[in-house]
């Protein structure tokens, strides 16, 4: 019995988490200055589409002398999933992923050199990633240019439930490797405006599909009968992404920012992302932030909600992340900044709460629970396959975090 849905999604999860760790650990916007010493503790909760994820994340950054800064991040996510994929073809599951990362920044003149390592473990996926980058300030510190490289080795397993115990399938073990190259430029335009651009190429090779997820197809051309089979994916994927950001300090103490990203890959996915934000301090203690984000993408070449027949093509996918859809996310953040006289070593503390609401509307991913049923239980009045209503996903995302600056 399948226990969970992973594959590409799991890779993306891990790679993004690793990339994210690299992002938070190596983040000098100004290459000639080391990042400030700080500690952050985050608690998060994601609830949407039958999936609940909670966990803490801790990030600590500390300078050693005037030229070295060290950062460490430890993160746990606890997943309880009964997503639509799990409902239609698998069983609900619980899992936990832990991730630890460590990085060092070396400041030399106008340049910062960074290296780091990230390790991520869960019951059916293990990822190890090395990353490095170099940043350099130039033109009177108006321009910062950065180059980054990441390389990851991942092991993919498949879980089985035997006598109520979750184990790795001894007959299944795959590998997936990835490489990422990026270049970014940050440019001060005026005394109130800064622009930045980034370009990143990511290449993957190996086992990229889910070991659990199924595609569905019509049996013998009968439009009323369907069955399922495992997905079939290419063994390589290369993607290009370019983004541009701008931030502007308004005539009063507040700031607006905007972002656009264009994405394309060898699987035929084309994505557009746009984001707007507004930051508004109130008094000497409060900072409020509002943010909206729109995303749209076209489907992968080998994605179909339901295929005409079994083994219809060399590559077949029914991962909703590869479907055609658009999504909107809106969020608010409130931050209270404070100082504690008894702790003179604490330059500043900040307590923040953030709430985001995400809604995703799929154009070619149908709610197959109306025909396949849920957890093996057929619906009382099943709909004809391919005529089910389109699937929609709504999620609530809560974050509570405290930051200390030293």
């Amino acid at each position, binding site marked *: 019995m399948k226990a969970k849905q992973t594959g590409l999604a799991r890779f993306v999860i891990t790679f993004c988490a690793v990339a994210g760790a690299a992002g938070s650990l190596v983040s000098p916007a100004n290459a000639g200055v080391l990042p400030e010493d700080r500690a952050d503790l985050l608690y998060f909760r994601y609830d949407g589409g039958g999936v609940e*994820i909670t966990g803490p*994340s801790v990030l600590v950054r500390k300078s050693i002398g005037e030229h070295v800064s060290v950062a460490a991040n430890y*993160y746990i996510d606890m*997943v309880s999933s009964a997503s639509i994929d799990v409902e239609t073809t698998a069983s609900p599951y619980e899992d936990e992923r832990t991730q630890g990362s460590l990085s060092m920044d070396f400041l030399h003149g106008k340049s910062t050199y960074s290296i780091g390592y990230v390790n991520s473990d869960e019951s059916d996926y293990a990822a190890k990633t090395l990353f490095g980058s170099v940043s350099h300030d130039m033109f009177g510190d108006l321009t910062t240019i950065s180059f980054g490289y990441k390389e990851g080795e991942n092991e993919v397993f498949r879980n089985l439930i035997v006598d109520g115990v979750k184990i790795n399938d001894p007959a299944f073990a795959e590998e997936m490797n990835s490489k990422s190259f990026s270049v970014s430029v940050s440019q001060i335009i005026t005394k109130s405006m800064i622009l930045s651009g980034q370009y990143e190429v990511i290449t993957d090779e190996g086992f990229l599909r889910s070991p659990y997820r199924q595609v569905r197809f019509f049996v013998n051309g009968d439009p009323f009968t369907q069955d399922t089979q495992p997905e079939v994916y290419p063994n390589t994927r290369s993607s290009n992404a370019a983004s541009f950001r701008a931030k502007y300090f308004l005539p009063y103490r507040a700031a607006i920012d905007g972002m656009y990203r264009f994405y394309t890959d060898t699987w035929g996915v084309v994505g557009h992302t746009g984001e707007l934000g507004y930051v508004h301090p109130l008094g000497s203690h409060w900072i409020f932030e509002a943010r909206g984000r729109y995303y749209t993408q076209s489907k992968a070449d080998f994605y179909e909600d339901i295929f005409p027949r079994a083994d219809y093509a060399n590559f077949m996918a029914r991962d909703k992340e590869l479907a055609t859809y658009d999504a909107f996310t809106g969020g608010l953040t409130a931050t209270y900044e404070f100082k504690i006289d008894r702790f003179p070593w604490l330059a500043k503390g900040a307590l*923040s709460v953030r709430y985001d609401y995400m809604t995703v509307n799929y154009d070619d991913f149908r709610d197959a629970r109306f025909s396949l049923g849920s957890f093996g239980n057929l619906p009382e009045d099943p709909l004809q396959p391919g005529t089910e209503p389109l699937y929609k996903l709504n999620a609530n995302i809560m974050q509570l975090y405290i930051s200390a600056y030293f």
Partner: protein
Amino acid sequence: MRIRGLIMMTLAVLSAGCSSIEPWVKPYDRENLADPIMSFTRAPISQDFLDHVFESREGSRGASGGGGGGCGCN
């Protein structure tokens, strides 16, 4: 030969450009830019988590600027 000439000319133009560029925003004019609200990632641990939520549910990836982090799933 033409390529070498083109490269030499490009380098000459670039080096001339570098030597003549004066920072048009002086260090003492950067009070607004130095304000913490002007940071692209004021709370990296939070932004990383949310970027990761997005990227684990989207076909797109990379060039997200602030990084990812945190959790995500199906």
